[in-house]
């Protein structure tokens, strides 16, 4: 402000400004957006940014999170819906003092390099961190557009970096300028102009946005406090001085940059040069050619036919033949053969006799798993002759969605399978999927409470008003009940912010077993980082993100019951000379169903819980499909949807199943007119509410995963109105929707239920005929299941098994079976020797 200083800014004369407001603003693209996937920094969801950018009329929006691409898929999904132009990039934050650089790939190859760059940084750091230096960027900079964000106020500090980068990327370098209402903005513009002149690098306007709308300032302040482990009162200058870091309209940006209009014009040009879109990441299946076959499809047909001959030695039933041909044709059409071969290969590895290890028991489930092809490939044991499953759900030609096969393995051997996959595909081509850990009611109120400096007691009491996994903040009635005043300004603010914070991502974790495999380098598709567990790597996207982009994922899951069944089979083989194979177990024995109807099900897979045991005598399962229903009905979904009692009444013949229209009978006849499975909910939406299949699929996903309250509401209106126009009564439509809404989180697809029901049958069969084997196998697989060892022991004793105490001469590490010498007449020796290991059962004896 000194008189002689050239930086003095004279008040613009009114004449200069007269035209500005009337002219239509120059197009503007915001390129510095920090979403809440820059954990505890960004104050809005990626989708909120995209929506807001669309509403403000920006030409494009660039999502650039801190050393991460974690949020881009969600932004992409929203942008696709709104047809908003999205540019994908990352904000590179360096650990060597280099100022932040926004990096945007121009094409697929450059995107791959960005992923590689981030992977390098991730692998160097502990889980959740990324350590980058400028040299890393220089190595991978080809094809990346770079915006250097110089530090304020001393922008000249960026000079050496600009020189270095200009040498390698002369036409791909920009200088980011922001107007931040800091008081020195005009000087800042001038300093940038000097740098621009000195280095001949164009300036580009950025908003350096942290939240989509100014109202989010409070939440962003709180996030800062959570990140810095401090309170609002102590945070001081770590908080922003004002609420200006929100998305602004092109007109507003043009006004702020009226002294540097070229910086605004540059944004649109910049966005145009970023031609890369996530849809180019069309997934490439790993190369699954097999020796002796020209194409994967040929190999698949061969394996399937070979398996079919084994499954049906006396020839395929016509129904199965037709289904198999149909499925193979669909698979060929959609080119999914490699995927099935991948699963086939994993299963074959598990079943194979390794030199030093026994085969691993496994079973597939998931929609695609319960197909005839999978049955023939040996992935599943659900006989398509027994259950009529909707193959179309996963493989409809119009939705090019990847098939979904989950494979359960013995829980003690799953690591072997995981390491096999790493070995077979290589660490650059296989990795675990991520799980985004989000704020829930309790964690939100806890962190917010700390930021507000509430006492531990208060926070504990507030959190105590919530259910464990509740996704709501405490409501005022509850708050009053614990003796706090919900109208107190500070408390009200805390509760409001807690509500906003819910569903905010907190950090990334590894998915329980979802494997992503690619043909090319996986780290050119997604940045990979270290998992907390040794020898594991994780990608940055979760299963919904992968699904959105159509990336293949095989779930390699662990199931304790499979370990138990394998151990039981071994004992059956050793002590009773029975074949150690699941397919050797006779199907549909009435004795088994009688046992289950008595609720004699301790230790049996899935149906051993108390809720299931009270359901069994009422449902009285008589055949395999009843077991499928039994598994599916005692779930929070159907229970909350109020389907249990109507179903039981109809089953017991008290009520008659009624179908308002014959089209519904087609969908619901197997379950007596009550929707119990996810597929049925979708079918109802298609048949009765006239949803298109892809809309129905979106409905399923909005119920299941993304849980956006807003979207489910729009679906609700569409669903009910659709049914009403289609001639249903409004009451019925509302009830219908309420019912299927319950599926959201906790409904079972029919195919999953069928796979589980199979395990129910197998475990019941062993328990029914060989309670000694069953008890010993269960005890040897602990910890698993619902009951403590003592209860399993007592149950075995009630079934006539003699339990012998630990004996230093006879006991082994595991529980063993022994001859029951004093009953010479019996062919079956019902006695088990307790192991050294089973301390709990020892106490019970």
């Amino acid at each position, binding site marked *: 402000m000194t008189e002689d200083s050239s930086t003095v800014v004279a*008040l613009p004369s009114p004449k200069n400004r007269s035209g500005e407001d009337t002219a239509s603003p120059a197009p503007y693209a915001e390129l510095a957006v920090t979403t809440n996937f820059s954990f505890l920094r960004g104050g809005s969801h990626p989708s909120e940014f995209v929506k807001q950018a669309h509403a403000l009329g920006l030409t494009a929006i660039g999502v650039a999170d801190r050393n991460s691409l974690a949020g881009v898929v969600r932004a992409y999904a929203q942008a696709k819906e709104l047809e908003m132009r999205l540019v994908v990039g990352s904000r590179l934050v360096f650990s060597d003092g280099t100022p932040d650089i926004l990096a945007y790939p121009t094409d697929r190859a450059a995107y791959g390099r960005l992923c590689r760059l981030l992977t390098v940084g991730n692998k160097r750091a502990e889980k959740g961190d990324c350590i980058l230096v400028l040299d890393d960027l220089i190595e991978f900079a080809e094809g990346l557009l770079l915006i250097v964000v110089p530090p304020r106020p001393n922008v000249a500090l960026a000079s050496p970096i600009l020189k270095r980068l200009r040498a390698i990327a002369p036409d791909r370098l920009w200088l980011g300028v922001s107007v931040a209402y800091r008081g020195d903005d005009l000087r800042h513009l001038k300093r940038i102009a000097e740098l621009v002149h000195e280095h001949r690098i164009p300036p580009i306007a950025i908003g350096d946005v942290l939240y989509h709308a100014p109202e989010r300032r409070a939440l962003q302040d709180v996030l800062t406090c959570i990140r810095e482990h401090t309170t609002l009162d102590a945070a001081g200058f770590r908080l922003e001085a004002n*609420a200006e870091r929100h998305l602004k309209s092109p007109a507003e940006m043009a006004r702020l940059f009226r002294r540097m209009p070229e910086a605004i014009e540059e944004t649109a040009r910049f966005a145009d040069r970023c031609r890369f879109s996530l849809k180019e990441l069309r997934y490439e299946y790993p190369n699954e050619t097999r020796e002796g076959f020209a194409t994967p499809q040929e190999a698949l047909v061969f394996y399937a036919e070979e398996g079919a001959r084994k499954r049906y030695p006396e020839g395929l039933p016509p129904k199965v033949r037709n289904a198999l041909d149909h499925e193979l044709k669909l698979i060929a059409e959609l080119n999914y053969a490699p995927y099935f071969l991948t699963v086939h290969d994993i299963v074959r590895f598990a079943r194979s006799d390794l030199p030093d290890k026994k085969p691993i028991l496994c079973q597939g489930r998931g929609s695609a798993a319960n197909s005839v092809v999978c049955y023939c490939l040996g992935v599943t044991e659900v006989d398509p002759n027994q259950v009529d499953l909707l193959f179309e759900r996963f493989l409809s030609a119009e939705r090019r969605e990847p098939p979904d096969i989950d494979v359960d393995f013995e829980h003690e051997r799953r690591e072997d399978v995981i390491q096999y996959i790493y070995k077979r595909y290589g660490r650059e081509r296989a990795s675990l999927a991520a799980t985004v850990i989000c704020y829930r009611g309790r964690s939100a109120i806890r962190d917010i409470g700390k930021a507000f400096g509430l006492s531990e007691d208060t926070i504990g009491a507030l959190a105590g008003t919530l259910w464990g996994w509740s996704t709501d903040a405490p409501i005022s009635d509850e708050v009053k009940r614990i003796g706090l005043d919900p109208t107190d300004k500070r408390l009200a603010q805390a509760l409001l912010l807690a509500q906003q914070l819910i569903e905010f991502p907190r950090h990334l974790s590894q998915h329980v077993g979802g494997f992503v495999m690619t043909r090319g380098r996986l780290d050119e598709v997604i940045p990979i980082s270290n998992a907390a567990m040794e020898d594991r790597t994780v990608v940055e996207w979760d299963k919904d993100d992968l699904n959105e982009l159509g990336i293949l994922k095989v779930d390699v899951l662990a199931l304790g019951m499979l370990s138990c069944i394998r151990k039981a089979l071994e004992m059956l083989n050793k002590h009773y000379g029975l074949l150690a194979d699941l397919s050797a177990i006779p199907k549909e024995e009435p004795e088994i169903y009688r046992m289950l109807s008595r609720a004699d099900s301790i230790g049996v897979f899935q149906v051993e819980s108390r809720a299931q045991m009270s359901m069994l005598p009422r449902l009285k399962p008589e055949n395999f499909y009843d077991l499928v229903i039994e598994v599916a009905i005692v779930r929070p979904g159907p229970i909350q949807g109020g389907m249990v009692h109507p179903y039981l009444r109809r089953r017991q013949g008290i009520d008659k199943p009624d179908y308002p229209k014959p089209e519904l009978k087609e969908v619901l006849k197997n379950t007596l007119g009550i929707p119990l499975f996810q597929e049925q909910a979708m079918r109802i939406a298609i048949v009765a509410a006239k949803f298109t299949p892809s809309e129905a699929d979106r409905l399923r996903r909005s119920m299941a995963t993304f849980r956006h309250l807003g979207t489910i509401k729009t679906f609700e209106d569409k669903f009910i109105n659709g049914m009403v126009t289609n001639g249903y009564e409004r009451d019925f439509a509302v009830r219908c929707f309420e019912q299927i809404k319950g599926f959201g989180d906790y409904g079972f697809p029919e195919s999953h239920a069928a796979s589980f029901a199979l395990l129910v049958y197998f475990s019941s069969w062993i328990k029914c005929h060989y309670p000694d084997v069953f008890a010993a196998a269960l005890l040897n697989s602990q910890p698993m299941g619902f009951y403590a060892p003592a209860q399993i022991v007592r149950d075995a004793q009630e079934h006539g098994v003699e339990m012998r105490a630990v004996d230093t001469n006879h006991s082994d590490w595991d529980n063993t079976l022994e001859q029951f010498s004093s009953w010479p007449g019996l062919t079956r020796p019902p006695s088990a020797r307790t192991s050294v290991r089973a301390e709990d059962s020892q106490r019970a004896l």
Partner: protein
Amino acid sequence: MREVKSALRLSALNARAESLGLKPGMPLADARAMYPQIKVEHTDDTADQNLLEAITDWCSRYTPLTGLNAPDGMMLDITGCAHLFGGEEAMRQDMTRRLRTQGFTARAAIAGTVGAAWGFARYGKPTVVAVAALRETLLPLPLAALRLDADKVDALIRVGLKKIADIVDRPRAPLAARFGAILLRRFDQAFGVLEEPITPRLPLPPYIAERCFAEPVTQEASVLQTIEHLAGDLARRMEERGDGARALQVTLYRVDGAVRRLSVATSKPQRDTRALCRLFRERFSSLTDELDPGYGFDVVRLSVTTAEKTEAAQKDIVSSATGSDDIAHLIDRLGVRFGTRRVMRFAPQETHIPEFAVINVPARENLPTAAQSESPQQDTDGPARPLRLFEKPEEIDAIAEVPDGPPAQFRWRRVLHEITHAEGPERIAMEWWRDDKGRTLTRDYFRIEDNHGHRFWLYREGLFGHETKPPRWFVHGLFA
């Protein structure tokens, strides 16, 4: 009672509760089951500690060397003091009697070692143990009298060792190996083989003078007179050794056991009686709470808590004193006169809100250590904040460009200022989490220079078009 591992347990009992058979450490539930009518209070460790400290201070009437012996005792070194009270036994009885009249139950023992006195006071006969009789009187005491942990004592009892006599003649090495070196150390301390000093609660002043009154004094004037008398006494003694007082303390022992201390500090070593008395007179007259003599003070003690060579003061005059020293002296002197809490200084606060960026803190208090976060730096040649910030911003009439331009001219106190230069806006939003009534509007600050070269810090309150209809303008400070 107190919470021990999430269970409420009794921690201390009165005599009546003890006679009912309750014991410390007993779960409250059990005690309630036995005697539902018992009255329990939560243990207040701080209050206990404070009380014990107060009693210890009171005990300094007997000897300046008093030590705290948590949780329930104190230790006095009466070497060379007993004759003033008519011998050791007389002193002991005087002490217990005075404590009893104050409502305490006290057991006092005098012995040649700290350990022995501790043991006798708690487990033996509270009496004076002659040095020669120390060994034989200690032997029959239980091992707990050796200040051992309860579990150590239990361990010893389990092997049949109950009394000190049981271990006195045993070989030492196996005992140490089995029960730890602490056993032998305590043993040696009790028998006087090892020296054990008392940790005094208050530092021993280098000079002390005191006067006891048979008839307690109640008048402030007579207290001051006594102080003058004592000060003269001290001054003579300090002169002998070339010392001067930097800090003095007068300790007034009230008949009922309350102890009042008043301190004065000088900025240079001082032994002029009248000057010292003047300080105390100022100190007395500046007392915020009345000096309550109650039934009178029976002992007045004046001690020099810090003494320095007076020659050192000469040096100070020659050498160039550093500024901070000068300020510290000033704070001292002002502090004596007005009370240290009234001498304030400014401390920066981490907040964006200008009027809260500085607060007053007592000057004696240490400034908070390095700031948690740095204030945002502005790119400017001059100061970003005005030299003079008005306590209350003054409203002005201004005409400005919308939405966020600086004013072209403004009228403040009826004078019209034409603006020639402006810088800004610096947008500062209020701290939304504070419950400040009405202080919610965002401000845009401008640094302004008018055509006469005056520089102002102006702000517009409220964002145009969002928060308020007609924005109001204020001048918040002056740069020059």
